[in-house]
């Protein structure tokens, strides 16, 4: 049972702290920092389902986030639907899209799959840049009254807090989903595919279906998060929605924390986001944030392929039982 796992309760405590600390004293700037951390954790955790659990590198993971943002924003503003409903529908639509594509490109293995994901990212970005209902390259804007519909009389200010709590909720769900898959039979099947796909197939794992499902599942929560975040930001356009760099930084986060572990993905996401915002705001280092991130990634890949959590496991072998 998932409730018997200490990590499950850790996740809940962590999410509760994230939600309530900025609420104390109405600390808006802290909230804006933490929402970025939460998004990093969401992206890294869901990417972990593909890279860490299944062993398939997805370079185009951000496509789910961006598409979710577009579908969500389109429904919430142009159609004027409820935000939560729009975000959920965005998740469903993007998952379905991922399932269709996954059935095609998951026939490819290893590096070929990785390249195809880049292809999908670029193709989708190019399509959206030319798609009239979504405003082509200028994108979509959230009109101010949309916030008032959500936030009531106090309007925008409450709407932003509501979005924040929703994003934290999605973050907690992402981690719980990672944990639930890890301890399930389905998760074992994914691990088998990661270790040796042919052997897994021989042992009765339906690799095609498993891979398509996990690809689709890994799309759902990022899409919901994308819908919420771009709603909060008030606008979306193709270059910010499908930022290849962010997709790649997601991989850095995952490797830093430790791929294949629930806590590692979240830890890497949080730490990397803090590091990045520190580097970007520091006057001396802001030009070099990519260099530092790159050097960090290189060191992790060469010397600590298990990331921070892998290092912890080696240091304290018993921790593997608790920190999953």
């Amino acid at each position, binding site marked *: 049972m998932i409730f018997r796992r200490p990590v499950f309760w850790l996740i809940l405590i962590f999410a509760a702290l994230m939600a309530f600390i900025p609420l104390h004293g109405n600390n808006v700037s802290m909230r804006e920092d933490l929402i970025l951390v939460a998004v990093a954790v969401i992206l890294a955790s869901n990417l972990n389902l593909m890279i860490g659990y299944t062993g398939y590198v997805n370079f185009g993971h951000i496509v789910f986030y961006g598409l979710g943002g577009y579908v969500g924003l389109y429904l919430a503003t142009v159609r004027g639907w409820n935000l939560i409903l729009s975000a959920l529908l965005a998740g469903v639509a993007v998952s379905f899209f991922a399932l269709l594509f996954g059935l095609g*490109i998951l*026939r490819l293995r290893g590096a*070929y799959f990785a*390249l195809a994901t880049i292809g999908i990212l670029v193709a989708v970005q190019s399509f959206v840049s*030319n798609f009239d209902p979504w405003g082509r390259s200028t994108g979509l804007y959230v009109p101010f009254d949309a916030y008032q519909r959500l936030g009531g009389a106090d309007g925008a200010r409450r709407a932003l807090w509501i979005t924040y709590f929703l994003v934290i909720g999605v973050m907690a769900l992402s981690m719980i989903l990672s944990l639930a898959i890890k301890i399930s039979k389905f998760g074992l099947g994914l691990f088998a595919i990661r270790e040796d796909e042919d052997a897994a197939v021989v042992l009765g794992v339906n690799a095609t279906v498993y891979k398509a499902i996990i690809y689709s599942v890994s799309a759902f929560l990022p899409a919901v998060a994308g819908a919420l975040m771009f709603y909060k930001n008030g606008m979306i356009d193709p270059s910010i929605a499908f930022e290849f760099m962010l997709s790649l930084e997601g991989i850095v986060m995952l490797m830093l924390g430790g791929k294949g572990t629930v806590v590692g993905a979240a830890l890497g996401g949080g730490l990397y986001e803090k590091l990045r915002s520190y580097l970007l705001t520091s006057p001396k280092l802001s030009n070099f944030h990519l260099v530092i991130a790159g050097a960090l990634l*290189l060191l992790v890949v060469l010397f600590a392929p298990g990331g921070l959590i892998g290092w912890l496991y080696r240091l304290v072998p018993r921790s593997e039982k608790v920190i999953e």
Partner: protein
Amino acid sequence: MSGILASMIDGVLIGAVYGLAAMGLSLIWGVMDVINLTHGAVIALGMFGMYILFAAFPINAYFLLLPIIAAGLVLGLIIYWTSVHWVINRPQLASLLSTFAVNMIIIGLGTAIWSTSPYNVNFTLRGITIGAYTFTGNHMAAASAAVVIALALEVFLYRTRPGKAIRAVADNREAAELMGISSTMVLALAFAIGIALAAASGALVSTLFPFTILSGSGYQMKSFVVTVLAGLGKPFGALVAGVLLGLLEGAVTPFIAVSWIPMIEFGLFVVVLVAFPRGIFGRDTA
């Protein structure tokens, strides 16, 4: 009608440069099964290498290719020993990530030095005018240079001992080692050549279009498309596929908005990848 023809000829000329870029990627991929994600960054470095050299020595820019290729070989050895050698026997994810890390470092340094504003190499060769259309000298010279370099690589791979060693290691690393080939040296050499080709193609591109430090990634994407079209480890096939891609771009440009082109290219890329995993020139030898 003749407009389309002119656009297609232009496409073929640029396609030869795409092909040269893809040859570097294809060689490394085929020989050591590493997808070199520093490719785009090195292409960008080739562009800036040309910019700096041309500013220092304002002679015919195409002669400056030689020092750029030499510098590319050295850079290739450096990248190989820092990031590729240690992960070559690990799962592919490791080399994808380590070369990507180097890519971030190069792009980060480049952005710090040159920012992301556009540069150009102010060098023009006289073109040929046929009727209402002019084919610029730079396009023709760049395409010729690309073909010459591609032929030189082909001769090197098939006629010289180090070249044959590279092909032997690509075919079967263990067997090649049993024949007395030092596979480490061969891998380093192949990687260096791949990087030099990328740098050379970047230098050629810089004589055609304005560029920024980020321009390389677009050519990296095109190189992926071309490599996959040609099939892995077929450097000369990559040149042909590059020309085909250029031809396709040239043929569709008069009819649709330029912003649709990536969609078409990458749609094609994914379809070819799924339908012909060995490339359209690949034979089913497995």
